[in-house]
């Protein structure tokens, strides 16, 4: 019993440390003060500022860019990665290991390396950096994770079900569509979600491939903003919203996963 109290206390202290920054931001998102730490009375002005696209155009722009880039990159990596996973699954052991290694390079490299290497690529080829290069860069580091999400589903699939489909009269393409695809769909979905998150959260790769034409994502916006000194107050409600949304999503996903297990 004592053990349990100790344990829970430890957890709560850690949680306190982990969440105090966020809590502070959330609290101070409800006040108007420019500087964090000043409480000038409860107000939702920052929220209304944020949601009115008139004011703080660039922040909303950055947010929209972040989301669209993420959606495009996630979709492309899911397609590319799922097809690749099926191909890899059919390879002989030695080739599979080699391809697996190439696949894991973007994962093992720090994102700064991926960013710089792509920067050098675009610079050498004379490609101007902007939206397209960022999307390509995101696809580069998202696809390996999709492959790693889909491949295990293929491995734990009963290998006979493909043959069973053929045996029952399906052509190879039909068998693929009707039997293999439903099996990997969960892997594709979790791969997509993962790619989406990685893309939204990314900073290092984006900053090297975004160019100087004024394109901004959430990460680069905050970075530029913070460097100028003094954080834009509207970032507080934005951070608060992001935290709440992610928390809600995670809880919902966990509930569904728990139900599925039963």
């Amino acid at each position: 019993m004592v053990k349990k109290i100790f344990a829970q206390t430890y957890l709560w202290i850690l949680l306190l440390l982990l969440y105090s920054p966020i809590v502070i931001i959330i609290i101070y998102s409800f006040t108007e003060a420019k500087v964090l730490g000043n409480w000038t009375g409860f107000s939702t002005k920052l929220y209304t500022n944020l949601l009115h696209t008139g004011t703080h155009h660039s922040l909303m722009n950055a947010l929209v860019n972040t989301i669209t880039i993420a959606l495009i990159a996630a979709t492309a990596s899911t397609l590319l990665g799922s097809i690749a996973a099926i191909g890899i699954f059919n390879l002989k052991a030695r080739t599979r290991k080699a391809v697996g290694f190439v696949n894991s390079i973007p994962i093992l490299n720090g994102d700064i390396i991926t960013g710089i290497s792509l920067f050098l690529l675009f610079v050498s080829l004379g490609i101007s950096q902007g939206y397209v290069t960022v999307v390509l860069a995101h696809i580069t580091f998202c696809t390996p994770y999709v492959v790693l999400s889909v491949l295990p589903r293929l491995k734990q699939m009963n290998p006979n079900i493909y043959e069973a489909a053929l045996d029952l009269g399906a052509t190879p393409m039909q068998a693929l569509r009707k039997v293999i695809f439903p099996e990997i769909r969960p892997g594709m979905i979790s791969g997509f979600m993962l790619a989406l998150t990685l893309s939204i959260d990314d900073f290092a790769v984006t900053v090297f491939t975004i160019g100087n034409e004024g394109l901004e994502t959430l990460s680069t916006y905050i970075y530029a903003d913070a460097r100028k000194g003094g954080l834009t107050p509207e970032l507080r409600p934005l951070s608060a919203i992001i935290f709440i949304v992610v928390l809600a999503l995670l809880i919902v996903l966990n509930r569904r996963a728990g139900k599925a297990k039963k």
Partner: protein
Amino acid sequence: MCTFAPQIGMNMQEYKSIIEISHVSKSFGDKTALDDVTLEVKKGEFVTILGPSGCGKTTLLRLIAGFQTTTEGVIRISGQEITQTPPHKRPVNTVFQKYALFPHLNVFDNIAFGLKLKKTPKQLIEKKVKAALKMVGMTDYEYRDVDSLSGGQQQRVAIARAIVNEPEVLLLDEPLAALDLKMRKDMQMELKEMHKRLGITFVYVTHDQEEALTLSDTIVVMSEGKIQQIGTPTDIYNEPINSFVADFIGESNILNGTMLCDQRVRFCGVEFECVDKGFGENTPVDVVIRPEDLYIFPVSDAAQLTGVVKSTVFKGVHYEMVVLCNGYEILVQDYHHFEVDANVGLLVKPFDIHIMKKERVCNTFEGKLIDATHVEFLGCTFECASVDGVNEGENVIVEVDFDKVSLLDNEEDGTLTGEVKFILYKGDHYHLTVFSDWDENVFVDTNDVWDDGDRVGITIPPDSIRVIKITD
């Protein structure tokens, strides 16, 4: 009738064979799974392909189903060659060992899968699926999830999924292997019933010889990629063609014997009357006696053999006893119980003594004479007793008796090395088949106890090597 036949190129007689397998071989890289297999399956019969793991039975089934293509040879179904036809175009359906039900579909959709592919109208699909479910005794299970079913239920759905397509041949790959004993016995009976009701050809693969004996019209015994024997269950059981089949099917006593003349054989140091003829005079033979065919009783004059009981095990239906007679250990099964160390007599009726021709009486190898005291065979040079009358470099035949080959634990101490592939107990010694690293079998008689798969060193003393000149 026969006027149509010339056009199609066959007559009514031939058409009775629904599956024709002609000289089929299959290799995976340098590993041969099937070696020149020829087999005919008659329409409507229940054929079981029986053998130990690795004998090639599953490969053969998969070739018929189309999941693998032959390296050599031709397969015909209903007279049509289908060797290169992909599986989805063949008129066969398979029931897999691990059921392979589609996890994302319920029972109804699983069974309807093949019908939907053929674009069968919805009404008809429903009718057929319901009929199939009834046939396997799973009515009312239509909308259940497959992972909520037990093993036996899943197996039945797998069978329903296959038969609903009304194939000409149903292939079953050890379908009952994953079920417990009671369930297996029940399903065996149900399968036999289904076979009768459906009237289609069943090709069944298993390693369980009891299952094969229960279910089949015809049994095909396979080992190491080759067919050993084809016959009815009674044929295979009562008249095994060689020691492999005799040993694989049921329990047997397999002993060395000498056929003195027709209907008279000598083994265990005693002469017996038997019913087989045509083996010649004083020919070495293998004698097979089923344990249940031996009568065991307290010692008396009626006994043909006398001995001492070495062990007794209660098997439920009967007792299994090992009796030592004249240095030979004989396995006996009987309802009567005799204690260890009891003196007993054994008797066997002439009809129950089965004689098999020996496949070989000694090891025979092709070799080359190196010099007067050295001969090369099995890829190694052996020292031998000096040979006259043969020139150096000439090809020769080398003979070595089974009991003159020595096997060593330490591979390096042998002239060559190999692996123990098959162990046959002959009552007073073991007759081993050792697959040497020269890819040839070496047969050894020994009293040492070895295990399947043991790696051994092989040596042969020089004076046991008989070099024989090849006379044209």
